[in-house]
């Protein structure tokens, strides 16, 4: 009997031993060691700033001055008593500031990507940026909101780092461990001038952008900023004066993006009930069946005027020019056939179809499709050891394309106001929630092909892989039962066209 008890205990111990600690894919990265410092990046093409020296940065104190010696003493003080916790934070931030801030942004998008719960009378409350802590929390970071937020942060980080590189090159202040060999370089060594600190520029610009994008997170992000800045100093990467100059420069440049963000029409994208009804009237006047919400209670359409937001790459005329031709008429035989195809696809889904649907769903409570492509990009960039400024440039190209893809896609969706397959045939059950906006064209297809086009330009040897991923993302929406195949085919073309606008910018921005 006793042997059986031991045997049973053995099973339990084995089962618990198999239960390995779950860790993130980027939890254990080495310090970023750029293969090329991109010392000329101060001359790269800016997004919003007119000049890299739009904001003056004070001449740093000489490395022989008492002020600088005091800076070094601060570093030595930290390094004399480094806690395990501090070592962990140094390791975390040393993998790269653009990477870590991108991950933090993805975390925020997932955190805030929750559709508001209905009121007792079946209407829905709208998040209020003036009171971000009241339910529903501001923002509801749905895909268009998220696409814009990623673009603003990435664009601002990029402009700020171009300015940072401009001043680094101008002042050429060496890193603390270069000036004083007794200082340990705990986050790796580089020949890049350290004033202003690029890490602090990123912290400042990102923290400042919270005032526009995630006003309920200002305090939390401020703590991240302090954590990163302390890690920069304690690791011997930068001095207090490098960090202070960097944070100030970052915040100033963020203000330019915030000012633009307050007037880019995003605040009006939710529309009014008059706008919502107008889509129905206009569509019916064309003799087409208008989209309606398949949620219960019926939810107002998601950001119906987002197509009027000002993008970074395409102006409003270019957005209109991107529109594809109309989908087949809702009363046509072709639409009936498309609907029947959608039904047949979803009737008995295979496990592989379900896997693809879930992998790409990026729905409620996730970092959205643009966030998924940020994750794909970030994990590929890690292996390439880009300088921080090149990291920022590549992320800005990607996210400006994603934002314009969102603008164009929402313009098209509300221009045609086409029903989802389940509206045409209620037998169509879906493998993920039906997004609360019109069907044509597929947002996933646009986001994915725009991203694949940009990333394929940045890393040409991966272009085929990115296109295959984008195609799988597009297919996932058909497998899920929430799109017609035509939505995804049209979305692919428009998405590639948007991606190519970013590629054309990349070819002339001075970084290639």
């Amino acid at each position: 009997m006793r042997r059986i008890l031991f045997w049973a205990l053995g099973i339990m111990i084995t089962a618990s031993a198999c239960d390995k600690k779950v860790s993130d894919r980027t939890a254990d990265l080495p310090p970023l060691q750029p293969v090329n410092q991109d010392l000329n990046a101060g001359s790269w093409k800016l997004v919003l700033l007119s000049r890299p020296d739009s904001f003056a940065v004070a001449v740093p104190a000489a490395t022989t001055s008492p002020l600088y010696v005091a800076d070094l003493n601060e570093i030595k003080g930290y390094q004399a008593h480094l806690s395990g916790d501090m070592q962990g934070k140094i390791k975390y931030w040393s993998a790269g500031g653009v990477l870590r801030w991108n991950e933090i942004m993805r975390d925020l998008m997932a955190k805030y990507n929750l559709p508001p719960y209905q009121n007792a009378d079946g209407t829905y409350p709208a998040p209020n940026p003036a009171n971000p802590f009241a339910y529903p929390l501001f923002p509801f970071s749905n895909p268009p909101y998220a696409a814009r937020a990623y673009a603003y942060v990435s664009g601002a980080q990029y402009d700020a780092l171009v300015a940072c590189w401009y001043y680094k090159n101008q002042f050429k202040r060496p890193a603390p461990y270069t000036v004083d060999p007794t200082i340990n370089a705990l986050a790796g060594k580089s020949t890049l001038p350290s004033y202003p600190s690029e890490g602090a520029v990123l912290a400042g610009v990102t923290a400042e952008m919270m005032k526009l994008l995630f006003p309920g997170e200002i305090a939390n992000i401020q703590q991240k900023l302090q954590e990163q800045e302390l890690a920069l100093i304690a690791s011997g990467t930068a001095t207090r004066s490098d960090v202070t100059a960097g944070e100030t420069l970052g915040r100033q440049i963020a203000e330019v993006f915030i000012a633009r963000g307050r007037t880019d029409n995003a605040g009006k994208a939710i529309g009014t009930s008059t706008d919502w009804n107008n889509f129905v009237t206009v569509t019916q006047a064309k003799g087409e069946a208008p989209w309606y919400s398949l949620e219960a209670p019926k939810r107002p359409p998601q950001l119906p005027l987002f197509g009027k937001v000002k993008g970074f790459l395409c102006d409003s005329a270019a957005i209109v020019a991107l529109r594809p031709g109309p989908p087949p008429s809702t009363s046509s035989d072709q639409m009936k056939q498309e609907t029947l195809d959608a039904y047949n696809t979803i009737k008995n889904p295979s496990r592989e179809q379900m896997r693809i649907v879930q992998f790409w769903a990026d729905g409620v409570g996730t970092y959205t499709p643009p966030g998924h492509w940020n994750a794909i990009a970030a994990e590929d960039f890690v292996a390439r050891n880009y300088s921080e400024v090149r990291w920022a440039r590549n992320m800005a190209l990607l996210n400006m394309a994603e934002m314009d893809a969102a603008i164009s896609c929402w313009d098209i969706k509300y221009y045609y106001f086409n029903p989802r397959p389940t509206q045409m045939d209620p037998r169509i059950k879906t493998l993920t929630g039906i997004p609360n906006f019109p069907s044509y064209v597929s947002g996933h297809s646009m986001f994915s092909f725009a991203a694949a086009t940009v990333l394929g330009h940045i890393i040409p040897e991966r272009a085929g892989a990115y296109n295959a991923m984008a195609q799988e993302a597009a297919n996932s929406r058909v497998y899920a039962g929430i799109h017609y195949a035509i939505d995804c085919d049209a979305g692919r073309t428009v998405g590639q066209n948007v991606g190519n606008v970013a590629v054309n910018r990349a070819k002339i921005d001075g970084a290639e």
Partner: protein
Amino acid sequence: MLIVVSLVGMLPLKLKAQTDEDGIMMNKNQICAGPTYSYSSWSHYWEGAFKRNNQNLGTVSTQMIGFMGIYGITKKLNIVGNLPYVWTNASAGTLHGQHGFQDLSGWVKWLPVRQNIGKGVLSVFTLAGGSVPLSNYIADYLPLSIGLHSRTASGRVILDYQLGHFFTTGSATYTLRSDITIDRNAYYTTALHTTNRVDMPDLWSFNFRTGYRANNLIIEAVASNMTTPGGFDIRKNDMPFPSNKMNATMVGAHFKYEFNSPKGLLITGGGNYTVAGRNVGQSTAFDFGVFYQLYFSKKK
């Protein structure tokens, strides 16, 4: 032998043989096996402490057909096995239901102590068990996934006291749950995780039953509780997730009746209702089973 169906989590129905929670043993070489059917449904559920319904789900129902068997290696050592097939459905909204084989589970049940105390008999049972998913079903599709796809290992102690025809049984169980792999490669709990592995909280469960127990009839009232010591709450209007904290308290009643003729045939049935919960559906569940028991004696 009775079967109790309990609702574990946002919905996946777990077939729980009463034989692994009761104070009864098969004799040496005795086998008892048969099918059970259970039905569980809810229209209200808890997101954290917030109780709500959802017009995009309507009533979520889970049906299960299980095949279960118990065998007496000796009269103090039994083994129990369970093979369930599960269907899920939502009566409203558009989400596609799921079906498939869920988790094969087994227990080794040992009776180390049986002694007279006062006018009654006290029995102590210790059990070790485990479960493994039988198919590659999708776990990250709550509330319509058929299970959570974790491998589990459990330890349980049962105390049973019988006085004449009346009995009281109490048990406590701790279940270790392995990580699971989901189809997504990132997910948000209380922070973003960039991995497709999900750390699953373990599970405490407690069961209390009392009633009438005679040779061929058992009628009992049952109260049970499950508590996940870890896990996180579903946020308002978010989707449920396999590693949510899932707590539930259920009350119900069950019976077992053994026919004199045909000898060896027995039926079981019962129901339960979730009176309190966290990140689970407020389910009402019924079950019914037919079993046949016989002796496997070695040929002389």
